[in-house]
């Protein structure tokens, strides 16, 4: 299983792996917002956390469709399905590898992009913390979509559409936790705890559902 984790990580950073693609997309989305909104620094600071979260959500959806499709195309999926090790464990490891290669860089890049949006230290810290807690959930939800669309030749957009409604609660609680941290009366912890609960919930449900979908996609 550790071998699978490192193989997926290696594939993601090699040429054509697409680990950096998500970060580049994230940077593009956030970098053009100030040009569109205009030089109103207060407005930028106010919408900053929301823009970062939306950018991160869209960037995490970007490479998800290849999660199982690449395995299917070269026949590796057959061998992954045949093993004695439970399939949901295989799916879970693939998700963590995918998140480490694509989700973690987004979290790391978010403070720099926060500066673009004129956010203060507290807002940047809160955004980073919520992204760290929330983006794994997007990967686990996305794994289900990727498994459902594994046999489709152009499943990319379909995966995003399938996944987006389920990812909306992550977005809502992620952003409300950030605003709770920077605006005084609202407490930070309740929405943050709910965000973590969502991640843990999908860490369990996601691999189970994805494994079931993969079993039935066999042809």
């Amino acid at each position, binding site marked *: 299983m550790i*071998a699978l984790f490192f*193989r997926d990580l290696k594939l993601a950073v090699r040429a054509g792996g697409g680990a950096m693609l998500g970060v580049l997309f994230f940077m593009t989305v956030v970098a053009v917002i100030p040009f569109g909104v205009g030089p109103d620094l207060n407005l930028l600071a106010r919408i900053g956390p929301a823009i970062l979260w939306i950018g991160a959500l869209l960037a995490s959806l970007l490479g998800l469709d290849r999660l199982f499709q690449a395995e299917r195309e070269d026949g590796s999926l057959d061998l992954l399905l*045949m093993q004695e090790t439970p399939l949901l464990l295989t799916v879970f490891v693939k998700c963590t590898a995918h998140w480490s290669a694509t989700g973690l860089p987004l979290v790391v890049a978010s403070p720099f992009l926060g500066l673009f949006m004129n956010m203060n230290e507290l807002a940047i810290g809160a955004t980073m913390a919520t992204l760290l807690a929330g983006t794994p959930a997007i990967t686990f939800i996305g794994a289900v979509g990727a498994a459902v669309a594994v046999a489709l030749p152009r499943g990319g957009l379909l995966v995003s559409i399938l996944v987006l409604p389920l990812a909306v609660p992550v977005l809502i609680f992620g952003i409300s936790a950030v605003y709770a941290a920077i605006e005084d009366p609202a407490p930070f912890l309740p929405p943050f705890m709910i965000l973590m609960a969502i991640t843990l919930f999908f860490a369990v449900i996601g691999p189970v559902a994805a494994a079931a979908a993969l079993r039935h996609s066999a042809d």
Partner: protein
Amino acid sequence: MRLLVEGLSARRGEDLIFNDISFALAPGEALIVTGPNGSGKSTLLRVLAGLLAAESGRLYIDGGPTGFKHPHELSHYLGHRNAMKRELTVEENLSFWQSFLGDSPGGAGISTAAAGEAVGLGGITHLPFGYLSAGQQRRMAMAKLLVAHRPIWILDEPTAALDAGADRLFSELVAAHLERGGIVIAATHQPLGIGQSQALQMKGFVH
């Protein structure tokens, strides 16, 4: 350990691809599946590998190691696609499968370097898999069968894209596996040149 198949049939869409196939394979025995294109060879092998559900019938292992529910957990499957990543080197591919697959009870896989030697391509395991020619890729996919021990080999057109020399080399690998008490099920158009084997002729659609 014996592999037993009783009354197996499989359906694709509306059509019954094959019906009521039964056979038994003891250690050291091979089953060669032949038949025209579209006669259900690959479907049969995918059912045996647990990748497709059988319509009826059952397959099981008699007297095998405990703790294995289905024969596919004790099987290697070499399909039409090689299951190797183009971006990784051959060495990385093989060592990944070696540690991911692990050895079945009753045997041990050989090292990745030795497996490269065994398929006659010892010197080029440092190259990315995508750089190799189609025949070399196929040979390296066979090396995958050697790095982790599995008593049952399920091979779908194993010698496609191979030259005559590699054909012979592969026959030797299969013969050596049978000698060690392995079981081989292969779908092929060319004779594999294996001594003791059963034959199964697939006829095609049963409407």
